[in-house]
């Protein structure tokens, strides 16, 4: 074997400086300043070059302080709640406060008791009792509520492929070609292609088959102008998330507050009063756990039909208002002025906090072909994720989910104008909208992250779902493809509803 080695030493600087290890460890280059913060920004850290030296000093300070602490003391800092790691300056500052002990009084709400909260969810018996930590003092930390500047303007196309088979690729090609034909109004070609898709789809299995079938149907409807019936909202908000909040409220130190829940939903096709059902169930729970509870249901076709006065909100001194909108905002984009009206109604309620959950997808662009392409990828990923290991027989829930998604696909692809309500937009756009409307972000912290992760593991273990922190918001995704974005907001210029954040997380 040929032996060939060369040794190259690289040395960039003056060896005489190296004597002082704890001395100046870095070199400040005034010219590099502006470039440096760009370099770090690419790596996910927002530091202004003017703050760089200060951050470095704080880091050094922390290193010294941690070096003298016991080994145990350091990792327990991991149990405090962290916010927005991209804001390096803020994160380091908070750590310094935590470590030194702050001047304000300890507040148990800022300990990461996310596991404790999770045990409060009825039925979760899976969590072992947590070992009580030998009292590390928990100091109060103000939630960082600086508004984040909007992200870069270039669009990102995240794609996750399953190890694909050849036939799947042909199917995707044909779907795209058909959509292109529709875009160009070449209906004869589109018609031929959509029939071909049907044929190709039938030779597929699993997620690919389902997705192709739904998209083919949607394309056919668009081509032949056989529009689907009104998109029925299956009221996914069946009240599943409220018991957890109620349990957490019941366990609040000092006793629970009175809780008034106002549910707003669409009219049901079969005359059942779904909202009242939800209300009754929650009232039963409230009685059991000792919470003063009131429920009101409002039926409305669209949130934009509501006037804030109808909701009879009491003044902020008497009543703290939280607004929760899960997949409820994007349909408002279908009618002119819809979103503006609802956002201003929300503002009129003077909420302490507004939580928003939306699909993380760009299904509302002006060009049909672009929407089609985005949707094809989004729903392919979603269906792939529902596929699971294939061992368990498909459940009722799974079938319902697929139907629900199928309806969405139909709406995105076949409908236009006010009928096209599935106008999903990515988080960057919602952020801009909320900030323009006068809201500031409330950062979701590491405790919310942990709870979300743990819940995912409980209900969808091993299936590849992940939670990701993104500038104070949380994204639920399948592997690396974000699918759903959750964010929290407060009225700009007001104090953050930090306690509520804890409980609502």
């Amino acid at each position, binding site marked *: 074997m040929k032996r*060939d080695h*060369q040794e190259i030493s690289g040395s960039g600087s003056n060896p005489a400086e190296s004597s002082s290890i704890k001395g100046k460890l870095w070199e400040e280059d005034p010219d590099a300043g502006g470039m440096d913060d760009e*370099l770090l920004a690419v790596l996910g850290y927002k530091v202004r070059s003017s703050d760089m030296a200060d951050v470095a000093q704080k880091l050094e300070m*922390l290193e010294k302080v941690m070096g003298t602490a016991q080994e145990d003391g350091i990792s327990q800092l991991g149990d405090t709640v962290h916010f927005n790691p991209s804001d390096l300056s803020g994160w380091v500052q908070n750590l310094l406060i935590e470590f030194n002990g702050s001047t304000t009084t300890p507040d148990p709400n800022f300990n990461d008791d996310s596991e404790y909260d999770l045990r409060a969810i009825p039925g979760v018996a899976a969590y072992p009792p947590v070992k009580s930590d030998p009292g590390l003092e928990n100091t109060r930390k103000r939630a960082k509520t600086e508004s984040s500047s909007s992200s870069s303007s270039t669009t990102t196309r995240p794609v996750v*492929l399953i190890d694909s088979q050849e036939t799947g690729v042909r199917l995707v090609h044909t779907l795209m070609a058909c959509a292109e034909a529709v875009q160009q109004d070449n209906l004869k070609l589109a018609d031929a292609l959509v029939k071909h898709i049907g044929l190709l789809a039938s030779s597929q299995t699993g997620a690919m088959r389902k997705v192709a079938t739904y998209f083919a149907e949607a394309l056919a409807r668009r081509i032949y102008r056989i529009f689907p019936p009104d998109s029925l909202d299956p009221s996914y908000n069946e009240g599943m998330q409220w018991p957890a909040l109620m349990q957490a409220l019941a366990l609040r130190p000092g006793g629970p507050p009175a809780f008034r829940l106002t549910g707003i939903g669409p009219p049901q096709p079969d005359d059942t009063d779904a909202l009242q059902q939800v209300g009754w169930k929650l009232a039963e729970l409230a009685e059991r756990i000792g919470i003063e509870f009131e429920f009101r249901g409002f039926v409305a076709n669209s949130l934009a039909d509501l006037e804030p006065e109808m909701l009879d909100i009491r003044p902020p001194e008497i009543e703290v208002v939280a607004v929760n909108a899960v997949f409820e905002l994007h349909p408002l984009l279908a009618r002119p002025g819809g979103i503006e009206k609802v956002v201003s109604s929300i503002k009129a309620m003077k909420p302490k906090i507004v939580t928003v959950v939306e699909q993380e997808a760009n299904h509302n662009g002006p060009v049909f072909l672009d929407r089609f392409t985005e949707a094809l990828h989004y729903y392919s990923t979603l269906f792939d994720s529902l596929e699971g290991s294939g061992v368990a027989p498909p459940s009722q829930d799974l079938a319902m989910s697929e139907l629900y998604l199928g309806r969405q696909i139909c709406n995105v692809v076949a409908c236009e104008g006010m009928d096209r309500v599935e106008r999903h937009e990515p988080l960057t756009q919602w952020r801009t909208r909320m900030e323009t409307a006068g809201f500031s972000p409330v950062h979701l912290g590491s405790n919310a992250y942990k709870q979300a992760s743990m819940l995912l593991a409980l209900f969808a273990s091993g299936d*590849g779902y992940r939670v990701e922190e993104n500038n104070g918001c949380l994204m639920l995704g399948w592997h690396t493809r974000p699918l759903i974005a959750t964010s929290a907001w407060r009225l700009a210029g007001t104090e953050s509803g930090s306690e509520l954040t804890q409980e609502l997380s």
Partner: protein
Amino acid sequence: MAVSLSTWVLISNFKLAYNLLRRPDGTFNRHLAEFLDRKVPANANPVDGVFSFDVLIDRGTSLLSRIYRPATAEEPQPNIAELEKPVTAEVVPVIIFFHGGSFAHSSANSAIYDTLCRRLVSLCKAVVVSVNYRRAPENRYPCAYDDGWTALKWVNSRPWLQSQKDSKVHIYLAGDSSGGNIAHHVALRAIESGIDVLGNILLNPMFGGQERTESEKRLDGKYCVTLRDWDWYWRAYLPEGEDRDHPACNPFGPNGRSLEGIKFPKSLVVVAGLDLIQDWQLAYVEGLKKAGQEVKLLYMEQATIGFFLLPNSNHFHTVTDEISKFVSSDCIKTIGERIMQCIGALLCVDYVCLFKCFLG
């Protein structure tokens, strides 16, 4: 010694975060780790000439890899249906990259590694496959190696990655820290199975042993990292009860195997002079040499670990130049390219002469 301010801030921040995550009882605060890790999505839209997409290689182990490809002049905006279009060049190096993080930290979609892989694409005109291997302590040895092996087999069997010249996939293995360690062990498995690996690129590879070496004693705690930290990571990765002379950790140690007579790929090993485990890395290089294997050592005297994460030092450029040469030396050069090289060399000589005259 001085590193740039931003490099120092970056490395310090990482070390600080890492300290929060390791618990004395050997468990790892995974939720906080994932919360703090800055991640970036794949992007099928080219940025600076590189686009990426993720592939789920093995559903059972949730093994994901991120593929990075150069955008071509003919196809500046790759069609989503054609992400796995066959490579067109005579020779396309495919670099299988294993990110660092001492077996416990980071992911293929960590921002620092996404950035590094993108650079590798442009630098080497290569396709880069970054493997999201399972991490310790939840997944101990040999999970990381198994995942690396799965990825290698996958890459080797992709028709679309075959170079036109010989219809074979031209594979290189690369990694930093634990990734370097994984590259070595995956290369070993490749040999046993007859898969050709053309070269290994090891950046600050993670090796160790029971003995405390001189560099470990001298540099313990000096540059944000302590020996105790390294011990923790080995305890987290190695099978329970094993010590650091386990061959995963110490491939040329008392339990290691000889590589004499084996067709091991040529290696490029980069060692940072301020890395406390450098003695183990240098011992690795010696071990390869003694076994008659081709190895090139790049010893960066004034470098700390992670120096290659930011492109703002001489070390960075030295290393990237060497990597580029290492990978391209196998490519057939067109006559035109050879001519350009010669002209370039002549120009350099000219400038050197000019400077010498000028400086007298």
